[in-house]
C-alpha cells in the first residue's frame, strides 16, 4: 500500500515538473525505481501518463513516459549499485531501441511524415529565399537548401542518431542529478503508522482486554506507552485523554492491531482493520484521509467489490446530506472529518477509534463533529474510543481514561525554553503613526475572465502600524489566506493596492515575512544552520548569527547541526521563525501558527511572539480561524467573512 501511495505522490510531483523541465521529472521517478519494485514504477507511469495526457495531450504523455524510462533506468542501476559505465551502456541500447521505434513509426505514418517534412522544407526554403536576396549570400542560401534536403533524404539515419545521442545525454544528466539527490532523500523519515493486520478467522475486535501493555518503537530507548491496562466494552463510548507524549496515539495503534512490546491483548476474534464489522480508525489530518474526489465516492472507497451501501443515509447521519456529488476539494476541515466518519460507518465497524480528530478543525466544525460522534454509540452497535487532548470533549463519553504519560514527553524534551527574548535585532520603534502595511480598496478575483472566476476578496481597507498585533479572523474559505499572500507581496490584487512603507508590496517581496501553516514547506535546506543562513541571507559559517537567530526563538544553539528531517513539528515552526526574524522583516505574518501544535508548544510559541512584539517592536499579523489564547498577542481583531471585512466590535486594547 505504501508503495501505491508513493507512486501516486510521485506522479503528482512528476507531472508539474515534467511540464516545465522534463529533466527534473526523472528524479522522482528514479527514486521510485530505487525504492520499490518495477511494478510500482509501471503503475506510476500509466497513471501519470494518463493525467499528463488529459492536461497536455500527446506531448505530455510522451514526456512522462520518457521521464519514467530515464528515471527507472537510473534508479534500478543505482539500486543494483552499478556505476556510470553501466548507465552509459544501457542508455546507448535504449537510445538505439527508441531510435528504431521512432523510425519505424514514421515509416508507417508516411502521410504524417510527409506533411512534417514538407512543412519543415517549406520553412527552410523560405529562409533560403530570404537569405538569397541579400547580396553575396546566394551561395550560402543554396548550400542551406541543399544540406537540408540531403539531411531529409537520409532521415532514418538522422533520427536514429539524434535519438541515441539525446537519450544518452539526458540519461547521463538524470543519473548525475539523481546521484546527488538520492542521499538527501534517503533521510526522509517514514511517518506511516498503521499496518494492515493479517486476519485469520472471524472478525470481532470487542470486547478488548488490555493487560499491562507497554510499547516501545524500534530504535527507541524508552517506552512510548505504558504500562496501561484497560477494557473496551461493546457499545460503550470511551474517551482517552492525556498530554502530548503520553502515548495516546500509540494506544490507538495497539487497539488497531499492532502487537505491544509486552503485556497481553485479549479479543474474541481478529481486529479486522478497515473490514466490515471490524475496526475503523479516523485520524488527525482531515485532508489526507479523504481518498475520493467526490463525496459519494469517498464513502465507498475501498469497500470490497459488490458491497452495496446506502450512501445517502450515511451522509444524512453525519449531516452532509445533499453533498454527495460535491468535490471533496471544496469541503472544510470539519466537513472532511465528518465525511471520514461516514466512510468509517460504511464498514459497520464494531470498534471505531477517533484519534484527535478535532485538533485541526475550527470551532464550528468541532461542535458539529462532536455532536455526530457522541450520537454514534446510541444509533449503532459499536464501541467508540475517542482520543483527545480537550477535556470538554471527553465529557460526552460514558467513561474517561486519563493517560498520565509515564512514557515521558518524548518529543519536546530537547526544546530548551529561554525565559525572555535576548537583545532585539529588529529596530525597536514603537507605535509610530506611519503605517507599515496599508491596504487600499483591495479586491481579488481568481481566474478572471474564465468560467472558473471566483472572488476571494472585496474592497478591503485597513492599515497595520509599527509594533501592532493584528488578528485576522475568518473561517475556511473566507479569503484570509489570499489576504496574507497579498500582504506579503506574493499575489498582486486585481483591484486596489497593498502598500508596504508606501510602495507596492509586490515590488518588495521578502520585506514582509510570512510563516505558512505547513512549516515543512518553508524548510528547504538539509540542516538547521544552513537553512537559517540561507533564509536570512548570511553565510552558514557565521555561527554567531545562527546561534543568535536560534536563541531569539528560544531554541538551543546545539540544534544548529541537526538535520531538518529530525525536528519535531514545534521545532520546525521555530526554525522557520528564526530564519525569517534574522532578516529583520518589516512585519511578520503568521498563517495558523498554532495548528497542529500541542498545548505546551502553543503556549511557548505565543509567549515568544508576545515578547518579540512588546520588547523588539515586531509587527505581527496573525491569520487564524481560532481566537483562543491570541488576545494578548493580538489586541486588535478584524473579521473576514466571504471576502469582506465585517464590522464586528473589535477589542482595541493594548494600543498605548
Amino acid at each position: 500500500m505504501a508503495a501505491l501511495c508513493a507512486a501516486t505522490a510521485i506522479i503528482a510531483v512528476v507531472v508539474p515538473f515534467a511540464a516545465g523541465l522534463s529533466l527534473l521529472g526523472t528524479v522522482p521517478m528514479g527514486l521510485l525505481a530505487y525504492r520499490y519494485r518495477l511494478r510500482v514504477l509501471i503503475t506510476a507511469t500509466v497513471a501519470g501518463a494518463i493525467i499528463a495526457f488529459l492536461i497536455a495531450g500527446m506531448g505530455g504523455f510522451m514526456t512522462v513516459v520518457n521521464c519514467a524510462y530515464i528515471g527507472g533506468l537510473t534508479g534500478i542501476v543505482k539500486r543494483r549499485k552499478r556505476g556510470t559505465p553501466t548507465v552509459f551502456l544501457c542508455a546507448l541500447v535504449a537510445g538505439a531501441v527508441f531510435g528504431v521505434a521512432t523510425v519505424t513509426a514514421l515509416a508507417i505514418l508516411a502521410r504524417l511524415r510527409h506533411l512534417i517534412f514538407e512543412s519543415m522544407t517549406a520553412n527552410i526554403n523560405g529562409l533560403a529565399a530570404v537569405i538569397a536576396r541579400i547580396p553575396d549570400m546566394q551561395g550560402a542560401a543554396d548550400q542551406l537548401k541543399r544540406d537540408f534536403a540531403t539531411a531529409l533524404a537520409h532521415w532514418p539515419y538522422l533520427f536514429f542518431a539524434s535519438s541515441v545521442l539525446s537519450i544518452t545525454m539526458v540519461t547521463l544528466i538524470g543519473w548525475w542529478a539523481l546521484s546527488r539527490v538520492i542521499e538527501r532523500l534517503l533521510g526522509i523519515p517514514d511517518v506511516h503508522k498503521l499496518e494492515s493486520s493479517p486476519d485469520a478467522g472471524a472478525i470481532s475486535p470487542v470486547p478488548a482486554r488490555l493487560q499491562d501493555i507497554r510499547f516501545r518503537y524500534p530504535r527507541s530507548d524508552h517506552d512510548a506507552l505504558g504500562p496501561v491496562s484497560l477494557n473496551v466494552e461493546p457499545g460503550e463510548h470511551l474517551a482517552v485523554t492525556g498530554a502530548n507524549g503520553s502515548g495516546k496515539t500509540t494506544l490507538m495503534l495497539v487497539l488497531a492491531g499492532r502487537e505491544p512490546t509486552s503485556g497481553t491483548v485479549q479479543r474474541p476474534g481478529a481486529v479486522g482493520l478497515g473490514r466490515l464489522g471490524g475496526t475503523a480508525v479516523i485520524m488527525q489530518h482531515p485532508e489526507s484521509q479523504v481518498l475520493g474526489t467526490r463525496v459519494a465516492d469517498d464513502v465507498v472507497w475501498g469497500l470490497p467489490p459488490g458491497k452495496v451501501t446506502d450512501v445517502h443515509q450515511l451522509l444524512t447521519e453525519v449531516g452532509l446530506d445533499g453533498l454527495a456529488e460535491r468535490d471533496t476539494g471544496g469541503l472544510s476541515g470539519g466537513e472532511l472529518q465528518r465525511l471520514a466518519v461516514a466512510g468509517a460507518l460504511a464498514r459497520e465497524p464494531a470498534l471505531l477509534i477517533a484519534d484527535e480528530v478535532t485538533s485541526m478543525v475550527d470551532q464550528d466544525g468541532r461542535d458539529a463533529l462532536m455532536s455526530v460522534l457522541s450520537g454514534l454509540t446510541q444509533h449503532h452497535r459499536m464501541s467508540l474510543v475517542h482520543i483527545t487532548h480537550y477535556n470538554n470533549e471527553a465529557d460526552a463519553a460514558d467513561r474517561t481514561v486519563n493517560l498520565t504519560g509515564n512514557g515521558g514527553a518524548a518529543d519536546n524534551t530537547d526544546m530548551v525554553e529561554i525565559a525572555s527574548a535576548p537583545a532585539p535585532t529588529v529596530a525597536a520603534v514603537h507605535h509610530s503613526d506611519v503605517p507599515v502595511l496599508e491596504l487600499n480598496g483591495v479586491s481579488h478575483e481568481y481566474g478572471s475572465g474564465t468560467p472558473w472566476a471566483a472572488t476571494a476578496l472585496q474592497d478591503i481597507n485597513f492599515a497595520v502600524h509599527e509594533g501592532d498585533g493584528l488578528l485576522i479572523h475568518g473561517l475556511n474559505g473566507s479569503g484570509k489566506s489570499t489576504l496574507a499572500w497579498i500582504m506579503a507581496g506574493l499575489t498582486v490584487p486585481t483591484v486596489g493596492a497593498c502598500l508596504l512603507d508606501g510602495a507596492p508590496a509586490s515590488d518588495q517581496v521578502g520585506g514582509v515575512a510570512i510563516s505558512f501553516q505547513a512549516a515543512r514547506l518553508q524548510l528547504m535546506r538539509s540542516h538547521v544552520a544552513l537553512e537559517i543562513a540561507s533564509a536570512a541571507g548570511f553565510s552558514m559559517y557565521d555561527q554567531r548569527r545562527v546561534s543568535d537567530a536560534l536563541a531569539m526563538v528560544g531554541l538551543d544553539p546545539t540544534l544548529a547541526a541537526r538535520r531538518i528531517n529530525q525536528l519535531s513539528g514545534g521545532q520546525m515552526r521555530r526554525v522557520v521563525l528564526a530564519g525569517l526574524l534574522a532578516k529583520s522583516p518589516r512585519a511578520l505574518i503568521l498563517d495558523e501558527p498554532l495548528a497542529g501544535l500541542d498545548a505546551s508548544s502553543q503556549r511557548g510559541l505565543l509567549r515568544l511572539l508576545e515578547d518579540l512584539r512588546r520588547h523588539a517592536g515586531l509587527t505581527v499579523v496573525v491569520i487564524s480561524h481560532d481566537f483562543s489564547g491570541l488576545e494578548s498577542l493580538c489586541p486588535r481583531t478584524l473579521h473576514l467573512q466571504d471576502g469582506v471585512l465585517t464590522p464586528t466590535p473589535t477589542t482595541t486594547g493594548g494600543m498605548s
Partner: protein
Amino acid sequence: MSAPTASRTQRKPVVLLRPVPGNSVIHQLWAGTKLIVVAAIGVLLTFYPGWVPIGMVALLVLTAAWLARIPRGTLPSIPRWLWILLFLGGLTATFAGGSPVIDIGSIDVGLGGLFNFLRITALSIVLLGLGAMVSWTTNVAEIAPAVATLGRPLRLLRVPVDEWAVALALALRAFPMLIDEFRILYASRRLRPKDVAITRRGRWRGWWLEVIDLLAAAITVALRRADEMGDAITARGGAGQISAAPSRPKAIDWVAFLIVLVVCGVALALELTILGTSAVTS
C-alpha cells in the same frame, strides 16, 4: 460582455483538471466514451493528416464546444512569443513558394509552403482542442472508473488494470493538494534573499544546489502526504471500490459513437477518394 472591470489586465491562467460548470449533453457523456473518441480521432489524424479530416474534426470539436456551452474565456491567453513564432513560421514558409500560385497585383505568390505550414499548425491546434474538450467537460472523479472499465479486457492478460485505476484516482485526488503545496514552496523560495555569487561558475553551482534543494523539499512533502494517505488506505482495509456510481456507457454514448464514426468515416472516404491532400506525392 467583455467590459474589463479589473484595473490591470490579468493573464488568463491555464486551469487544469477542472470542468467548466454545466450539465450539457457533452458533460453527461460517459468519460470512457470521450477517451475512446479522442484516441480514435488521434489515430485517424496521425495516419491521414489531410485538410478534410482536420476540418471535419475541427467542426466536431467546435460543435461539441457549442453544445457544452464553453465560453470563449475558457481558452488560456496565448503568450506573445507564440504568436510571433507562428507569424515567422508562416512568413518563411510563404517565401518557399509552391504549387497553388495566386497573383497579387504584379507579383506571383506561391502558397504551397504556407499551406503546408498552416496544415501542420491546424493539426496541432485540433489535437490540443480535442484533449482540452475532455478535460473541460469531464469531472475528474469519473476518469479512473472509466479507465478501469475500459481496461477490463486487459485483465485477461494479467495486466493489473485495477491497480492502475486506483493509482490514477488517488493521483487525481492528491494533485490539487500537492499543487497547493508546491505553490507555497515556490512562494517561500521567492521570500528568500538571492544568493549572490561572483563567479559564473559559482552562480551555476548555486543554481544547481538550489534545484536539488527544491526537488528534495518537493519530494519530501509528497512522500509525507503519501504516508498519510497510506495510513488512510490501511484504515479502510486496502483498495476496493473507487466509485459509488456504476461506470458504463448509456444510450446517449452510443449516439455519440455513431456520430463520431460517421464523421470520421466520411472524412476518411473523402480523403482517400476525391479530396485527398495528404498523399505522398513526390
